[in-house]
């Protein structure tokens, strides 16, 4: 069985690293992106099964990324993650994420195991 490919988009590198660690141990192939544009470039370049996107990122934020993904690759599962932000309340962010069809929304800090479990369920993988 080929590994599912997941793009992790977050501007904080240690967050990306901890997610990568958990996802790789969960049996995923992980690509990292520091913002929405990088994530979109990676998606276009090599494709992905799922994207874990922070909503609050410099340049292209998570909502914009989500919209782009819904247009370009509707089948890709998206899990939005957020630790909140100064400009947009968590409610508005989550509401936007829901509205634009994010499959799940997780609030930082969460246990990475939760994320892996959600992804497994979304991609209908047997639990590792």
């Amino acid at each position, binding site marked *: 069985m080929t590994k599912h490919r997941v793009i992790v988009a977050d501007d904080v590198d240690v967050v990306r690293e901890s997610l990568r660690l958990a996802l790789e141990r969960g049996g995923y192939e992980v690509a990292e992106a520091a913002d929405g544009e990088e994530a979109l470039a990676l998606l276009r370049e090599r494709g992905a099964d799922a994207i874990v996107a922070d909503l609050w990122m410099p340049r292209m934020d998570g909502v914009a990324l989500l919209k782009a993904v819904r247009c370009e690759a509707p089948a890709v599962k998206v899990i939005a993650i957020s*630790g909140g932000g100064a400009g947009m309340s968590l*409610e508005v962010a989550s509401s936007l994420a829901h509205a634009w069809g994010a499959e799940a929304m997780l609030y930082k800090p969460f246990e990475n195991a939760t994320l892996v479990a959600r992804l497994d369920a979304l991609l209908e993988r047997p639990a590792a």
Partner: protein
Amino acid sequence: MPAAGIDGRLYVCMYSEGPLRFPILLVDGATFQRWEALDYAMLAFSCGILVGLAIYLGFMWRALRESHLAWLGLMALCLFASLVSSYNLMAEFVTPMLQPSARLAGLGFGYATIACGNLFVIAFLDLRRLDRRLWLVAWAICLACAAMTVVAIFDARVGRVGVALLGLLTGVCDLAALVLGARRRVPHAWALLLAWLPGHVGTGVLHVIALSIPVPVEITGNMGYAGAMLATLMMTIVAIDRQRSRREGVARALRESETRFRDFASAASDWLWETDAGLCYTYFGGGAMTAIGFEPARALGKTPGELLDLHPAENPAALWRDVGERKAFRNIVFGFRRGAGGRGYLSVSGVPIHDDAGVFRGYRGVATDVTDAVLGEDARRRREKLAALGQLAGGMAHELNNLLHPILNFAGEAARAVPDTMPATRRYLGIVADCARKAADIVSRVLAFARGEAARSEPTDLAGAVVDALVLADALLPPETTIRREIDRAAGTARVAPAEVTQVILNLVTNAAQAMPAGGTIGVSLARASRGDGRASASLVVTDQGRGIEASVKARLFEPFFTTRAGAGGTGLGLSVVYGIVQGWGGDIAVDNGRDGGARVAVEIPLMEAT
């Protein structure tokens, strides 16, 4: 010579007809008695006429309230009396018996005429205020007239010289008064110049001439006086009429100005006040006093401190300093306690009042109830503070959560990597992870607090909130989808959280956009509507040009997680979230198909005010 008498006796009558003539008449007793009776009857008659005229003059004075007219009238009376009693006339026309008493009366009335003329000029030109020295001279002439009358009893010649000199002196005095009067009382001075002086001075000159050349001074001179007096009377009446009409004009202007300011005062919502020197209220006017919570009648005689329960913390020192220095003050706001724990604010302005002598008499000014403005400003500041707090908390939470996430997860990873032989290290890492969870809990609680404050329902202008939300929604829509706005700016005020309005709009607009994958126009309208129970409400309608809603779907629209876009990534939470929010507002939501086939979502939002 007849020698018959009732009692058989003859009487010798001797009288003076002038300085050089002393006729002696022999009359019988009956004639003498008749003459004597006639003499007394004439005296009584003259006195009666004089008293009657004086009474008439008194009435005229009362009616006109013009003292110079009274003096002029009295002067005419004296002139008339002096004419009647002038011994020449008496000698010729009435009876020789009256001569001695008539001569004295004639002189006396002549002096009285001069004195009254003087008093007339004094009053007419308001000489007392014009020039005090001239006023004293005029009165001295009046006293001299009285003295001359007494002297004339003993010496007729002195009396006549006196009349001539006093007449001249009066003329000079009048001339001086006229020059002075021309400065201030122009019409009066003209009246005097044209009518009075020629006759007055001319008669004086005639009297002087009569001392050497025998001229009928009593007739010509007094005729001159009479003409001058008549002309003066007419000119005086004209002058008074002019003055009165001017005074009436001034009074009318004053009345109009008073009415105007009274209207201003009653139309103003401000409260007008006046205090005495002890700062006790002596007057209230204007409209807003009942709103402040007291009756004007009850407040009179009280000081501001007694009337209003002044709030100690907001008692402006500047106001009391200005009042202490008797200075004007403007727009000073101070707080006071209103019944039932409320607080009110007044803005006061005032100016000190001084009397003519410059003595402080109190203050006069306006006060305005500015409670709403002050409290509104407070609320605005509080909202801004909360928004800043929300931003700060959101930014801080973002940073902290991004730090806590790796701490929590790497602590877990590290603990997993620690061999069983090192239980203490594993325990330490567990403590780190626990601490990270507790910190995350604290952060979320701070966020929840800031969010709760920000999402608190408050009176919100619906149109403004919807327009703001549409700006946000616009940025999220694909370029081929546009929004057609029909927003009634006066839709009203509802007790809602603006963040919730944003959420409802975003959800409905994105739903509509997703119903039209190829793009189209989303209609958003907001208008006033009336509910069945008569309460005011606003109707928010969002329409799209999609395929509409199938009947089977309609029943399940608001179920959580129900979605028609299962394959396209819909979670189905959108409409149920909207439904929850709208229920929270006490409103209602209805989904239907529009006339053109697209979906139509109508949200009814209750307004705060009545229809």
